[in-house]
């Protein structure tokens, strides 16, 4: 009998079928299994025996199923053979008698608009130290003009953030304007300025919202955010979710509100919110504290912090890492960069290629150049820092599965790429990281699929 949380997949193959593999297949023995990695399509499967590896090589060499069947001499081999066919089909590792294009990168074209650095809160950890607005922030007409330009560049996704974007009086109108242009709209908000009217209005025009709740109850949230609107924010989360908006709660704990009870209390919050929602809300926990207004954790402190956060994740779902890993790696979709090069517009019009603004050099201002100029510049930088062009990633079989890591934290140019002349190096990769990646690939595969 099948367990309730699995779905059954059925497929039929003809014995005359052949598989077509679009990427170069490389094998990596790890502990007691073989990882078969399709490099160019960022796909992988896990083989449990040398026999399965040999059969896969026959398929790679163009032999059809019938040819391989004739090589099988006993029930055990037959069983492993059928399992291998299922494994290949489950991940679309090979296609039947047809060729798909090889480098399938996500097609979304995004910009992120930081509408203001103004915020009604003064969160201790805020990496933007948001509070007061910048001099000469872009006006409504200027933002509309930017969106018009983005439409001309075939843009697809717009994120509005801040500061707190609801501090801008034109915010609701701008969201509708973006929607009317056909963009998928996402917003990031602290939730404190929302009311029923604004929630109903925004729900019509946005795909996604991420609301920050930095604790498990009013007091815990107050410690970090200095605000007592906890219940109001929780209700806003529930309202958005029930109005069909994909809703995320982003939580950044600090050592001040992390204690022995945090896992249990946070789980209660997760369960409470989801019990009130028809669509599940996804909770996003920050795993690494960036330098913020009053907080600057050392590397060692961040390691300790990360371990505490993983305990919370583990309490809520021990298998969460593996589910996320396999779902974040869509079949045959390549990740060749962390997203560095994406256009981020700061409220004064300054352009950055990641929104860790304080870690980056500004590349110009939208009032001086067209958006098209910055999109092209960003694409150039994205390509320059892609796994294809950086050491040691470009020679790594796992490059499109890994993506290379954060371009600010893990590279020798620390995100400041303007006029950077040196060869770009990934500085943190080592055998420990590679083995962790292999473990994730194997365990997530074994958790997700049952053959």
């Amino acid at each position, binding site marked *: 009998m099948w*367990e309730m*949380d*699995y*779905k*059954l*997949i*059925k*497929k*039929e*193959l*003809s*014995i005359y079928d052949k598989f077509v593999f679009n990427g170069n297949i490389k094998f990596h023995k790890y502990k007691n299994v073989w990882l078969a990695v399709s490099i160019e399509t960022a796909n992988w499967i896990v083989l449990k025996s040398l026999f399965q590896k040999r059969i896969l090589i026959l398929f790679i060499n163009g032999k059809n*199923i019938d040819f391989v*069947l004739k090589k099988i001499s006993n029930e055990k081999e*037959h*069983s492993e053979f*059928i*399992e291998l*066919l*299922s494994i290949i*089909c*489950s991940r679309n590792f090979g296609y039947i008698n047809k060729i798909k294009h090889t480098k399938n990168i996500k097609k979304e074209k995004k910009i*992120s608009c930081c509408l203001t650095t103004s915020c009604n809160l003064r969160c201790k950890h805020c*990496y933007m130290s948001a509070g007061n607005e910048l001099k000469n922030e872009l006006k409504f007409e200027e933002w509309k003009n930017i969106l018009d330009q983005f439409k001309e560049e075939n843009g697809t996704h717009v*994120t509005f953030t801040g500061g707190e974007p609801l501090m801008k009086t034109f915010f609701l109108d701008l969201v509708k304007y973006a929607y009317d242009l056909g963009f998928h709209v*996402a917003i990031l908000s602290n939730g404190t300025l929302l009311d029923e009217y604004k929630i109903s209005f925004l729900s019509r025009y946005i795909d996604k919202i*991420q609301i920050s709740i930095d604790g498990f109850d009013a007091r815990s949230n107050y410690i970090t955010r200095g605000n007592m609107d906890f219940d109001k924010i929780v209700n806003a989360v529930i309202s958005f979710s029930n109005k069909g908006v994909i809703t*995320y709660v*982003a939580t950044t704990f600090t050592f001040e509100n992390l204690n022995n009870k945090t896992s249990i209390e946070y789980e209660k919050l997760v369960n409470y919110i989801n019990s009130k929602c028809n669509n*599940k*809300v*996804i*909770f*996003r*926990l*920050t*795993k690494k504290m*960036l330098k913020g207004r009053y907080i600057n954790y050392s590397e060692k402190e961040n390691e300790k912090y990360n371990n505490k956060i993983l305990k919370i*994740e583990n309490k*809520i*779902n021990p298998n*969460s*890492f593996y589910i*996320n890993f396999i*779902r974040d790696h869509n079949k045959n979709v390549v990740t060749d960069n*962390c*997203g560095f090069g*994406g256009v981020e517009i700061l409220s004064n019009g300054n352009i950055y290629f*990641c*929104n*860790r603004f304080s870690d980056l050099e500004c590349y110009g201002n939208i009032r001086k150049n067209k958006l098209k100029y910055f999109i092209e510049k960003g694409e150039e930088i994205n390509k320059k820092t892609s796994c294809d062009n950086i050491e040691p990633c470009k020679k790594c079989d796992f490059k499109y599965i890994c*993506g*290379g*890591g*954060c371009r600010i*934290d893990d590279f020798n140019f620390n995100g400041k790429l303007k006029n950077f002349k040196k060869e770009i190096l990934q500085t943190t990769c080592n055998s420990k990281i590679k083995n962790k990646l292999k473990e994730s690939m194997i365990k997530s595969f074994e*958790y*997700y*699929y049952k*053959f």
Partner: protein
Amino acid sequence: MSIIINFKKTKKMKTKIIKLEWKEKTDINKISVGIWLKEGYCGSY
């Protein structure tokens, strides 16, 4: 794994169709750990 065709039967009767079955997880995860500066995950491993 469920084997639909019988090994001997395959050999003798020359079955031309192989039926496969496997299972995939369906549960939607409620929690995710990462760096969330954007509306999606920032960084890849």
